[in-house]
Every structure is written in C-alpha cells, then in structure tokens.
C-alpha cells in the first residue's frame, strides 16, 4: 500500500505536534514484517511552496490520509484554503483522517469529525474514517520519554491502518479514550489545573522568554 499523507497543520513542521504524531504513525505503518512493502510520502500544508506538488500528488494518489489539529471545533483556516483549491474527484479515491487536539476528551473532537465525513463527500472521495485523539498539546512542551509517552501509541494505529486501510475498527474507536471524564477525575484534574497545571504552563512560558503573567490583559 502506498499512502499520500498530508499534514494539515498550519504550524511549521519543526514544531508541529501533528508531524510528531505522523512520525510514529508511519513508523507503525511501514514496520518490518506487518508493514512490509508499505510506503508513504508526506507533505506539509504549512509550506505554501509545496501546495502545487501536494495538489499533483492528491490527484495521482487514491489512498490519502489528512492529519490535522482541531482549530476552533473544525479544520484550520489554512487547510481550508488549500482544500478549496481542489477539484472534485470522480475516480474512487479515498481519504482517512487523523484528527488531534489539545483538549483530552473525545467529545471535544466530534464536531470536527462530523465535518470531515461531509468534506470527503464534497471532494468526491470515499470516507475511510477518522482516528480521533486529544491530549496532544504537551508534545511541543516535552522531549524524550515524556513526549514518547504521548506519541508512541500512534505506532499501533499505523499497524492497524496497514491491516485495514481505514480507521473504522474497534481498536481505532477505543484509541480515542473517554468521551468525558468521570466526575471524580474531573474533580482531581480541576485541582491539578489550579496548582501543578498552572505552574507547568508558567514554567513553559518562562522557557519561551515570557516575562508577563499568562492571564495578562494587553488591551484593557
């Protein structure tokens, strides 16, 4: 199987969480043994210099994955701009999606997921499902084992896609995790957000050179 992978994140590749996810996913997809013979090519929507090539490859390939971060409940404006430039296909091409977000609960991504199915129809393609997973904001703020803990599970999803060619399996559905957290988990996380969570964001901001409080109001 050859897969065209489009990273739909507007963030440059170097800092793209979606790219780090794809590194692991494609590792599983093309793994020796189960993924023997699988190949892929990947392009970045964040680089407008690649858009002509992406369009050419989009029309040439029939097995496509678009990976994207959730931006305000749906797809990022930049990816929308690219998609608007595509012609409707009538040659049995199929698209599957990897939809990722910062918020952790599955329910946060469902509105975006619904649109991706409609989008696929409008592009004249067959919908092959969406791999839905949140809790990915930390990828950019971590390194080494802490980052691996977030991204490594995507390898298994690459193996799964290699077997099925879609994201419809029970394994893929379960990958999302809880739709909402139980009340006691929300209670504990709520405390964590006010204490350790705030501290970790403050620390990250300091390392980025921020000297202001994160709730600063520049336009008051």
């Amino acid at each position, binding site marked *: 199987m050859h897969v065209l992978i489009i990273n739909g994140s507007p963030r440059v590749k170097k800092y793209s969480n979606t790219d780090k996810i794809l590194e692991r996913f494609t590792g599983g997809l093309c793994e020796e043994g189960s993924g023997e013979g699988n190949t892929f090519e990947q392009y970045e929507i964040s680089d407008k210099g690649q858009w002509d090539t992406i369009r050419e490859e989009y029309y040439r390939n029939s097995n496509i994955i678009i990976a994207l971060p959730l931006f305000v409940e749906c797809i990022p*404006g930049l990816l929308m701009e690219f998609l608007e430039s595509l012609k409707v296909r009538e040659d049995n091409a199929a698209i599957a999606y990897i939809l990722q977000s910062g918020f952790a609960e599955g329910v*946060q991504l469902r509105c975006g997921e619904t649109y991706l199915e409609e989008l696929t129809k409008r592009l004249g393609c067959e919908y092959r499902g969406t791999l839905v997973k949140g809790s990915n904001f930390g990828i950019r703020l971590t390194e080494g084992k802490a980052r691996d803990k977030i991204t490594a599970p995507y390898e298994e999803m690459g193996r799964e896609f290699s077997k099925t060619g879609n994201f419809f399996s029970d394994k893929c559905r379960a990958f999302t995790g809880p739709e909402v957290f139980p009340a006691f988990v929300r209670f504990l996380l709520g405390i964590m957000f006010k204490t350790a969570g705030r501290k970790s*964001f403050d620390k990250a901001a300091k390392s980025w050179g921020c000297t202001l409080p994160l709730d600063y109001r520049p336009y008051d």
Partner: protein
Amino acid sequence: MILIVNTTSETAVTKKIKEYTDAAGIETEIFEAGEMDISHCIGCNHCWLKTPGVCAIKDDYEIILKRMIHADQIWVISDTALGFLNHRGKNIYDRILPLATMYLQFKGDQMRHIARYDKRADFGLIYIGDCDRDYLERWNKRVALNFESESLGVFDHKELKEAVACMY
C-alpha cells in the same frame, strides 16, 4: 455594542444590516474584513505562552481583536466552501485565541480555557452560499461554548431581518 465582521466582498449585506440596526437604534461596529489584510492562524501559541493576549502575526486582525473584548455580540459574515465557512471566515475564528488564556478549567463536564477578559460576547453567523446549515448551527454552538457564551444562531444572507432581530 454589536461587532460585525464581514469577510465577504458583499458590502450590500452590511449596508442592509446597518439600515435595520440604525432604524432599531442598535449600536454596531462593522469591519469590512474582505478588504483587510488578515492571515490564517499559524498555531504558534505565542498568544498563550510568549506574549500573552497578543498575536504574533502583525496584520489588520489586531484592530478587530481589540474591539472584540468590548462587544456584546460578535457576528461573522462568511462565504461558504465545501459545505462549511470558507477559509476567510474560518480565519476570523482561528485568530480569536488571544481572548483565551493557556490556563484550563472544567465547565460542566468538559475542559475549557479560562477567558482572558471579563466580557462574554455571544456569537452569530451569516453565510452566503451552499452549506450544511444544521452542521453550522451545531458548530456555532460549540464555538460559543468555548467562550462561555451563547450561540445567536446561523442565518442565510437572505434572512437579515431575522438575524438583526437577534441583535439585542
């Protein structure tokens, strides 16, 4: 104050809205964003972690953002594409993120970012073109949820009277 951001080139729509709102004594502020230089969000997170509340992209969006924090309602007028808002319309929403902080809390049973400012603007949407209206209604409600506000509804540009009826 009602803030209206028209991302289309159809200034006749905003002209008509102004007629209706003026007649009703409703205070509006209209941006013809179709003629403004507004980029897409690049997802850099500087507005959360490096320059809190300030977008790293220096373009015409900043003036809109500065007015958003004083608005009671924010209405976006957008052309559609592929059944949804086109990229010009979506960019207006993607660039709103400086109004939220990096900090998190639970609202109901879902995580939300804590708002940066005290004022909460409700959201309305006017579209021009073919779309899945039910989906846009659902999406607009989710947008409002993120900013602890209400959806004012989604209207075709031929329903301007109905839209203006929701402005106060």
